């Protein structure tokens, strides 16, 4: 009853209206951002429309443009220019990209048999990733026009049939395979990599936020109680110190999980919103395009990942959850020790730093590279940070690197046991009231020593 009473009080302290608002706000912000980004990207990809000014009156150019129009993969918006001032003309027409086929283009190709320039004008934009999508799409359309041009030349100048042209243009049928841990699957490694990255990038984010939030919460909870002397009142009441300690840790875990839930929901929607169309595209193009087989047979990424041993089994999720729990428990135990040392708000901020560094280093390292492929020395240093094992757990489980996983798990258990032993020792002895960290005091001490020297 007393444990429940304290837990209720701790939760009431941590889950305030402001905290709930902040959780909802973060989630909604991520969802909205995903929608905005996705919308912008979709708009960019949908812009298979190009503005074209045809100044050439040759039959060749007319035939090429007709074939491009007939292909229905692009939508050409034809315009007439009033002057050669392209900047002013684009401003007048309200367009970002413009292709100009100059007079004499067709003649140069058919009569002189010489390549001729086609102008492509784009407005320079600095609006982030999505702003460049329009230009990329326009370049693709130009590429398509170029292909039709080549086909026309081969057809008209050399009299080749459609089959011959197709053979010349595409003489190699590429079938892509990916190998992982001595297993092989018929799938493009780049497409697989994109899916793999999207699947595994949520976990590090969740771990990162979960750890930081849980640690900061428990640290603030303990230090505030100590600074306000409510801890003395609480611990002189007929309630065991272990109940107080347990209730505080449980409340921090519950609140952190709630925070993480909101954040992950937001993040998943962000990814879906942003990458939704792209994921579809990757899935559709995942297999070798050149093989004429049903798409489902070669583009089933889940099947390919399972064949390569990269799919997560229910057991993998259980093992990952176990390590995630241990990581949070370690974070809480360390924060508990640090929080109990705080004497004022300033010292709380200073004491948060070691946790933040220990959480951020493996987060960035695992995001940017593969820890397992690093040199032994560096690997030992990075794996000495207990949180690293959870960041790499998902990858290790997906790759079947079970030895690294189990070593990591055992290391985390030992680390947690040591931290918990220290935390309990601190909480059940005088140290809770006698050990303190005062940033000002240490600064003054240092200053005094310098002056003495």
């Amino acid at each position, binding site marked *: 009853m007393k444990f429940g*009473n304290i837990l209720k009080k701790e939760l009431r302290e941590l889950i305030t209206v402001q905290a709930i608002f902040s959780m909802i706000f973060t989630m909604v912000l991520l969802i909205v951002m995903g929608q905005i980004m996705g919308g912008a990207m979709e708009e960019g990809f949908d812009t298979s429309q190009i503005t074209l000014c045809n100044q050439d009156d040759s039959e060749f150019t007319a035939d090429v443009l007709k074939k491009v129009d007939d292909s229905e993969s692009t939508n050409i918006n034809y315009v007439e220019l009033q002057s050669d001032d392209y900047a002013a003309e684009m401003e007048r027409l309200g367009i970002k990209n413009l292709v100009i086929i100059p007079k004499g283009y067709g003649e140069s190709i058919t009569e002189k048999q010489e390549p001729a320039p086609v102008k492509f004008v784009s407005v320079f934009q600095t609006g982030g990733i999505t702003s460049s999508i329009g230009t990329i799409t326009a370049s693709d359309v130009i590429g398509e026009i170029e292909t039709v041009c080549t086909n026309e030349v081969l057809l008209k100048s050399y009299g080749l049939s459609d089959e011959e042209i197709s053979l010349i243009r595409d003489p190699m049928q590429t079938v892509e395979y990916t190998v992982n841990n001595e297993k092989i699957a018929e799938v493009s490694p780049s497409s697989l990599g994109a899916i793999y990255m999207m699947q595994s990038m949520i976990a590090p984010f969740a771990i990162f936020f979960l750890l930081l939030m849980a640690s900061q919460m428990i640290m603030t909870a303990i230090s505030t109680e100590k600074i306000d002397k409510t801890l*003395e*009142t609480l611990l002189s009441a007929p309630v*065991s110190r272990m109940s107080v300690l347990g209730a505080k840790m449980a409340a921090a875990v519950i609140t952190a999980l709630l925070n993480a839930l909101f954040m992950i929901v937001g993040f998943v929607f962000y990814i879906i919103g942003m990458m939704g169309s792209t994921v579809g595209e990757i899935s559709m193009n995942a297999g070798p395009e050149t093989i004429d087989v049903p798409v489902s047979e070669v583009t089933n990424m889940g099947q390919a990942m399972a064949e390569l041993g990269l799919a997560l089994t229910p057991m993998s999720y259980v093992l990952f959850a176990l390590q995630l729990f241990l990581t949070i428990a370690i974070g809480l135990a360390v924060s508990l020790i640090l929080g109990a040392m705080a004497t004022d708000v300033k010292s709380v901020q200073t004491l948060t730093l070691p946790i933040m560094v220990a959480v951020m280093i493996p987060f960035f390292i695992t995001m940017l590279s593969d820890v397992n492929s690093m040199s032994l020395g560096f690997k030992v240093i990075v794996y000495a940070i207990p949180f690293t094992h959870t960041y790499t757990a998902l990858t290790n489980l997906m790759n079947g690197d079970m030895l690294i996983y189990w070593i990591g798990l055992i290391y985390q258990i030992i680390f947690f046991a040591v931290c918990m032993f220290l935390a309990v020792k601190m909480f059940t002895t005088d140290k809770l*009231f*006698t050990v303190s960290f005062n940033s000002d005091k240490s600064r003054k001490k240092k200053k005094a020593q310098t002056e003495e020297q």
Partner: protein
Amino acid sequence: MGTVLEVKELSKKYPKKTNFAVDKISFSVNEGEIFALIGPNGAGKTTTIRMISTLIQATDGDAIVSGHSIIKEPDKVRENITYLPDEAGAYKTMTGISYLNFMAGLFAKDQETLDKYVERGKAICGLGDRLNEKIGGYSRGMIRKLLLARAVMTEPKLAIMDEATSGLDVINALEIRKMIKTLAKEHNMSFLLSSHNMLEIEYVSDRVGIMTNGRLMVVGGIDELKERYQAANLEEVFERVVKNNEVR
């Protein structure tokens, strides 16, 4: 009259310190008695109080609270005491009433007792409807009243209070002193107080113990000490004991 607190040769030495913070002190507090520990800053009053409250461990000696040793049965000791630290705060996100409920829940064994404690707390603090407001909006005086009510609502055998009236204005401080006296006389509660306010101690206490440098120099009733030191008031006694090391 039974003894509620029996302090026997109690000592405390903090790690890395050469001197004892509390050096073999002995005294007792009887049922319904108000006993005050006075002394200059660093004399060891708060350390003594914290040891009796089971917050820190004694290096040597013992203290018996209602028959329970602070060393061997700290859990039992905590059932018989309440402690009000100097400049203590309360949970700002709670309302006054939920704070009383929460603290009563730590002492009460059933709902009926809990309700009784809370009702008593409400009556003692005198905060009325403001108990429904968040503690974050309370003045320092209001918080102190709430904490005092919390400390006595469970009618502990021994209420330990460090600077009970600190932060209170004259009227509120007077009310608290009267309340302590009433609770001691009418409810047979015992109090162990610590204060720098000699007037307050003289008004409220039955007996005092004067501490300096971790040692309990003198123990006695107010009038008894004044007579022993031929002093006009407690302040003079204090000065002679602390400044001149006069032990009579």
